[in-house]
């Protein structure tokens, strides 16, 4: 009985401390809530309006007058406001989805490191990492939800059969498994955060029972790698997209995820330390995390190098090579690349082909080289300039560089080149429209909102458990 009361008390702890902050807390909440609400309204009112109308009125027999009053009409709106086409079927939404699933994956790995190595400093950070995983999964799920053409039908035909009957509509489709793993990971992390706070909030003497934490880690650890692997498996096994059709896609996804996730977490920890007096993270945590992230970055860069060799050295397969040309071609590497570009590169790039990427899609090549340059720069800085990673400002700089590098690599550069040129050799350029930017911002804003609402109670609980000041500063 007392256990149930404690559970209610934990829930109350979450609610109380989510909203009990200073004015800055409220300003941020309102900013994110307002932005998120407006842009989500744009989704419902512009992009998904005809689909929502048709599904509700025709298939679920709702009364159309209410919808008409809200301004949702069946013949206006639609995905025509985005720049996606039959050639470029996935655009900005899926690009950022890939990035955020990666960030989510890295969250639980922090907790794993903490419990495996029994490191007190990392154990202070692990629950915040789980909160980050929750926020990242929320962003990812929102991005997929706004990307799908018929959202209500998705719930009817995909979510409900899986959740209620444990029946997968199509055992062959990796999308179904992605749905399961992402939602399981979300639930596992919610449970993890709840468990941590449930004991930590009561004071220094309370900790979750070890067997529970180990069970949790055994499930959550592989699941963390699993979500990003399954996300990669969606793209990886398709014969139609040679740019993705390589077993290296899943490891590349995971490697860069393990670089970006901790970097985002470090930035958040610095903000948390600044604004939540009493929460202190030992300095060595920052340094060790940056080093770990850099190792992951090195692996990621290595995979990019491997990609470049595989597509350009001997490969005569034109589809693969022209898609990679769209990614790697830049004025300063033209001379090296010239002998490796087959005749048909001229078909797309014209004879003056010392340019960035393919016509109309220059930004992909630019993003690729930003990734390579910033990634290598970060690695060099971390290895050869030790004072940088020992200071807060240096760590902030390095973390920002890592985040920028991985965002450049993991968003457009990994999703769009598989569609440009498409399976029949048609080059249909893609550039995100304002609506796509708005809906991506919606997902991000709501994710940040969730993050701050979850992270604050977690921080309070951590301070209560570990004491107001850390061991060293």
């Amino acid at each position: 009985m007392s256990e149930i009361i404690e559970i209610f008390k934990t829930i109350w702890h979450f609610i109380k401390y989510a909203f009990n902050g200073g004015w800055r807390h409220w300003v941020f909440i309102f900013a994110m809530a307002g932005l998120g609400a407006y842009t989500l309204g744009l989704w419902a009112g512009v992009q998904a309006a005809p689909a929502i109308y048709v599904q509700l009125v025709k298939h679920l027999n709702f009364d159309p007058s209410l919808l008409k009053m809200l301004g949702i009409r069946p013949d206006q709106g639609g995905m025509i406001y985005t720049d996606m086409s039959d050639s470029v079927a996935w655009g900005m939404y899926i690009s950022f989805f890939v990035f955020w699933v990666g960030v989510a994956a890295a969250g639980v790995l922090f907790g794993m490191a903490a419990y495996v190595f029994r490191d007190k400093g990392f154990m202070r950070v692990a629950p915040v990492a789980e909160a980050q995983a929750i926020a990242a999964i929320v962003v990812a799920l929102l991005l997929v939800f706004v990307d799908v053409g018929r959202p209500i039908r998705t719930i009817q035909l995909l979510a409900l059969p899986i959740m209620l009957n444990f029946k997968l509509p199509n055992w062959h489709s990796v999308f179904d498994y992605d749905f399961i793993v992402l939602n399981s990971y979300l639930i596992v992390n919610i449970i993890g955060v709840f468990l941590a706070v449930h004991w930590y909030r009561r004071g220094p003497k309370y900790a979750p029972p070890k067997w529970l934490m180990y069970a949790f880690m055994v499930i959550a650890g592989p699941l963390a790698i699993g979500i990003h692997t399954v996300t990669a498996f969606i793209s990886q096994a398709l014969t139609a997209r040679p740019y993705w059709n390589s077993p290296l896609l899943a490891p590349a996804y995971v490697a860069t995820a393990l670089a970006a996730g901790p970097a985002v977490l470090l930035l958040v920890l610095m903000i948390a330390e600044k604004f939540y007096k009493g929460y202190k993270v030992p300095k060595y945590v920052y340094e060790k995390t940056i080093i770990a992230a850099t190792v992951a970055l090195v692996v990621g860069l290595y995979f990019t190098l491997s990609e470049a060799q595989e597509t350009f050295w001997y490969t005569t397969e034109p589809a693969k090579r022209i898609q990679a040309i769209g990614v790697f071609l830049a004025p300063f590497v033209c001379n090296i690349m010239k002998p490796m570009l087959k005749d048909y590169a001229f078909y797309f790039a014209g004879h003056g082909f010392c340019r960035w990427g393919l016509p109309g899609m220059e930004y992909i090549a630019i993003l690729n080289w930003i990734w390579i340059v910033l990634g290598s720069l970060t690695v060099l800085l971390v290895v050869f300039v030790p004072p940088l990673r020992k200071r807060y400002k240096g760590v902030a700089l390095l973390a920002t560089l890592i985040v920028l590098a991985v965002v450049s690599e993991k968003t457009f550069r990994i999703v769009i080149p598989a569609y440009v040129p498409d399976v029949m050799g048609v080059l249909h350029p893609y550039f995100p429209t304002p609506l796509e930017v708005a809906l991506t911002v919606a997902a991000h804003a709501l994710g940040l909102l969730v993050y701050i609402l979850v992270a604050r109670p977690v921080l309070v609980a951590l301070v209560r458990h570990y004491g107001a000041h850390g061991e060293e500063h």
Partner: protein
Amino acid sequence: MVEKGGKVRRNLLKGIAATGITGMMVLDRDKVKDMLKPVTKEDLEDGYVYTINGEEYVISAESPYKTPEELKELAKKKEQDAKRRCMESAKEICKRLGENSPECRLAKKHCKEIKVKWTLAKKGVRWAMALDLNRCIGCRRCAYACVQENNIDRTQGIEWIKVLNLSREELELIATDLKYTDAPYKERVYIPLACNQCEYPPCTMVCPVRATWKEADGIVVVDSYRCIGCRYCITACPYGARHLNWKPVIVDALTLNPNMHVLGNVPREVHTVEKCIFCMQRSRDGGTTACVEICPVGARAFGNLHDPEGPIMRIIEEYGAFVLKPYAGTKPRFFYYFGPARTPPKDAKNPKSSNWLGNPPRPEEGAPGPNVLPGGEESFNEEKKSGEGM
């Protein structure tokens, strides 16, 4: 120290045990084994067999509608919806052009005539199409007749058939040109491309809600009432054969084709996928497809692959056929071949003769052939002599 290690090991074992038990409860070994088996065409032909009026029909095991009654219900729903949308369009036309105008009457007539059939696949039939690349002139009549036959939304620029224009020397798809305005030319070959109704379709493997599946007679269909518009199938198709309705679909009663099939050419909904369905509203009832019918040079042939008196078997045996992207392993049912005679291209030298290429005339009897040296026999012997001297 040992105790601590023991405690860790025990906790770890407890954790693993917890995961193992959860895992066994959730996974079903048979389902996992099923999933790893590739779907063969024998499995598809071996669906649910129904005997109606003495004829055997098959519903594929992949289809979410397992009985003819379910399909009939779906057809009734779609017919109601199609009639409603058609009448809305007809009312608008009548309002604009007057109640007694011929357009208004024609529009209303089309709406009344709408029939959404649920004709099943006959047992033992495998639809396939063959296309003679020597005869095709790249005129695109097939592409646009298809648009008119299948109630495709014309305001969105969707066309199920795309005609590729490749160099005759190397059928390299990357170098294709879709937007040519002048054809046919002698060094180009024109390849109309639509859904190949593959035997191992990647698109049906990836659909998360089973909105698309391969019917028992080979046609890969999309149910517009199940599609969630996730575009995974468009991503998976190696031939670019699938198209999404990116904006609300506009039904025009004047140009509507009332002959519809429930899994085929009923006007689709917004944000759902559509593709070539081998005119199942015609072919399953004994007719032939719109593209075959309209081709001005008769380059297309459509029929049952298994029919010894059908065109496809004859073409494969007599002329040999190839498919696009064979390395993709999808085993398409759309065969291309180079037939015995070519439609003379625009830049032919003698378009009216059999020698339209304008090859130089053959030499008469006794004249030296092309591989004799200009000097005649003497130079030949001279060279031989010098060779012998070595």
